[in-house]
């Protein structure tokens, strides 16, 4: 990492560190689920995106007139939808088995859906018609963006509770598929429901917890300070802002780390590991396996949600189109496995290390390709192809690292004690 700083610039080092810290937080969440409870969650992307959504809903100013135009309608429709499902579940549990029950449930669901669409569609059209090039969504609550971080965690926890309730009692493979699916659906919803967060049109210009570079450059005190230190004020301002983010992220990471460490070393942590190692034995000892699984699944997902909110804050915009499972789900898995599942320190290390590798593979790959193709003449098709393909070395390298670690050091870099 030092070498990166010397050879490129400190600015990009801070950039890598900031994202590395966020990755480390995500890895902590996954490690809680996999390393300590043996839950196979491949829906991390969805929880991260929910955290991102939270920043928009919390921090953006509300859109003028959107609530009166259609917001209430949307809210009513959503409540009606929830009520429909609730009634259907009620009918399912209260009525006795038979054709009548099936008919009643079908009736409730179909009529509920029709009413929902009748209320929902015009409300959505009304909201999306408001200044569509800039707004066209409900907007947020205009609260400080830092509040969005815990809210993001709560969002993710809510989603995780719903999934866990349905899928956790089943086999591990099913949980994997269920989480994979729910992540895709969350992304699809954020992409398509423009009234919520503008969908693929993105929400940009999110409020920041740190000052803007331009303001710093115009600030007299800041310029005097940079003069005294002998740094260019423009460079100093970007570094300063990134440092503020880094400090915030380190604080979150440290708090989570201490909490997790304490939880894992407590009787609760011992119980979790006992369940992981032998579910049947733990159940025979009177431990409620499904409830504990649900608990740890919700907690781990909440951590991913917090990380997602942090990332969107750092980006300053919500871009649903960029959420890809390879980057936001499976890369985190590589981090946890490589770092050492079952060890929080390992997860943090894996997060930082793999993120650094992920960023550095591209320039390194380009260098390797330059070396390989140096003998070829300029404009030769293979040379051109190889140079263009260097960018795709990333996935290959990640897979290779994962397989090598699994084979030769299955416990990761810092194994569980």
């Amino acid at each position, binding site marked *: 990492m030092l070498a990166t700083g010397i050879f490129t610039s400190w600015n990009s080092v801070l950039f890598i560190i900031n994202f590395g810290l966020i990755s480390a937080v995500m890895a902590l969440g996954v490690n809680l689920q996999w390393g300590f409870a*043996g839950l*196979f969650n*491949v829906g991390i992307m969805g929880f991260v995106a929910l955290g991102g959504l939270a920043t928009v809903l919390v921090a953006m100013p509300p859109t003028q007139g959107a609530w009166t135009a259609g917001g209430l309608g949307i809210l009513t429709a959503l409540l009606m939808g929830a009520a429909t499902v609730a009634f259907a579940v009620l009918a399912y549990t209260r009525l006795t088995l038979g054709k009548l029950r099936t008919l009643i449930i079908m009736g409730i669901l179909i009529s509920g*859906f029709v009413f929902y669409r009748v209320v929902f*569609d015009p409300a959505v059209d009304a909201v999306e018609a408001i200044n569509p090039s800039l707004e066209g969504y409900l907007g947020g609550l205009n609260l400080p963006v830092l509040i969005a971080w815990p809210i993001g965690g709560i969002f993710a926890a809510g989603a995780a509770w719903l999934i866990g309730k*349905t*899928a956790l009692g*089943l*086999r*591990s*493979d*099913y949980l*994997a*598929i*269920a989480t*994979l*699916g*729910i992540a*895709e*659906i969350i992304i*699809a919803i954020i*992409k*398509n429901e423009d009234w919520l967060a503008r969908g693929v049109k993105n929400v940009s210009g999110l409020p920041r917890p740190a000052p803007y570079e331009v303001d710093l450059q115009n600030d007299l005190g800041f310029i005097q300070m940079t003069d005294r230190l002998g740094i260019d004020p423009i460079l100093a301002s970007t570094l300063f802002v990134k440092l503020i983010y880094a400090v915030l992220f380190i604080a979150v990471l440290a708090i989570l780390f201490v909490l997790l460490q304490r939880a894992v070393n407590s009787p609760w942590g011992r119980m979790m590991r006992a369940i992981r190692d032998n579910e049947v034995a733990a159940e025979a000892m009177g431990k409620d396996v499904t409830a504990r699984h649900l608990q740890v699944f919700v907690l781990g997902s909440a951590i991913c949600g917090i990380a997602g909110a942090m990332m969107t804050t750092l980006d300053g915009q919500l871009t649903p189109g960029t959420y*890809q*499972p*390879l980057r936001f789900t*499976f890369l985190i*898995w*590589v981090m946890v*496995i490589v770092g050492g599942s079952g060890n929080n320190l390992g997860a943090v290390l894996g997060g930082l290390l793999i993120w650094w590798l992920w960023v550095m593979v591209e320039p390194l790959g380009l260098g390797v390709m330059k070396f390989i193709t140096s003998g070829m003449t300029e404009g030769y098709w293979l040379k051109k192809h190889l140079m*263009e*393909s260097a960018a*795709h*070395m*990333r*996935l*290959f*390298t*990640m*897979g*290779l690292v*994962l*397989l090598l670690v*699994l*084979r030769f050091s299955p416990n990761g870099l810092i194994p569980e004690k």
Partner: protein
Amino acid sequence: MDLLNALVALSNFVLIPAIAYGSQLALGALGVTLIYGILRFSNFAHGDTMAFGTMVTVLFTWWFQSKGITIGPLPTALLALPFGIMGCIILILATDRIIYRFYRVQRAKPVIFVIVSLGVMFIMNGIVRFVIGPNDQRFLDGERFIISVRNFKALTGLQEGLAIKTTQGLTVITAIIVVGVLFYFLNHTRTGKSMRAYSDNEDLALLSGINPDKVVAITWLIVATLATIAGVLYGLDKSFKPFTYFQLLLPIFAAAIVGGLGNPIGAIAGGFTIAFSEVTITYAWKKVAIYVLPEGLKPDGLVQLLSTDYKFAVSFAILLIVLLFKPTGLFSGKSV
């Protein structure tokens, strides 16, 4: 007449695409289900296996096209398909030898296999993107339609047209042949029977002298073949893009689970269930409704239940419902 028109519109926009898509999903799900039955893990690399086989086929197709070799009205890709299958088999067997075998000897837990398959998925995805790039590739040539809209209208005098693309016809025919051969193999040949025995009870099969290495190798062979065929058919019907193949993983898994993991018949049924629900729920029914409903009830909107972007949500919802009420799938598969 109106009813006929409605029927034609329905087949054109719902039935035929859903049958073609369902066949592709069924072939993919068969691969997943075979791996699950015999090697006992969910293979996350399946989508990328399909992509790899298809990529080899695409490269051979381009090579044949540049040499001017075609097979008349049929797509050249059919000629390249055996080469694609060969390439995929080589890659898959090498993967098994280098990577999976180690864990099989160790008798590692299924979830370890799943994580290993994640690594394989990354590598295959990397290779495919490295060789052919992440962009959309089209490799379809030959006659585009078996029946085109205009011919159909002229033939029947109906208002609605019906088009059957060559690729759709090809998909269904190939799928039927492949499934027929597969089931004959599984049910009537010695090797197929030993595979089923191994899937049912590994220890008992070993005791009766079945060679596990051979069973595993044959399984991978079949899986590579199925994956390549499914991938090529999908690529011909839509287009080839590595990321789309990765995303196919979800409906394919849904199909395999809905049908019952480890059960080949279930995989086929699951494939069609998922395909039909995806298409019917995301289809705008206005065209059909115009003909069927009486004058006063003509719909204003598109009568689309959900926007097409939610097709993943549909397969997922079906998956959840099946899991909640019949956890082993429609045709009871195994549960470990």
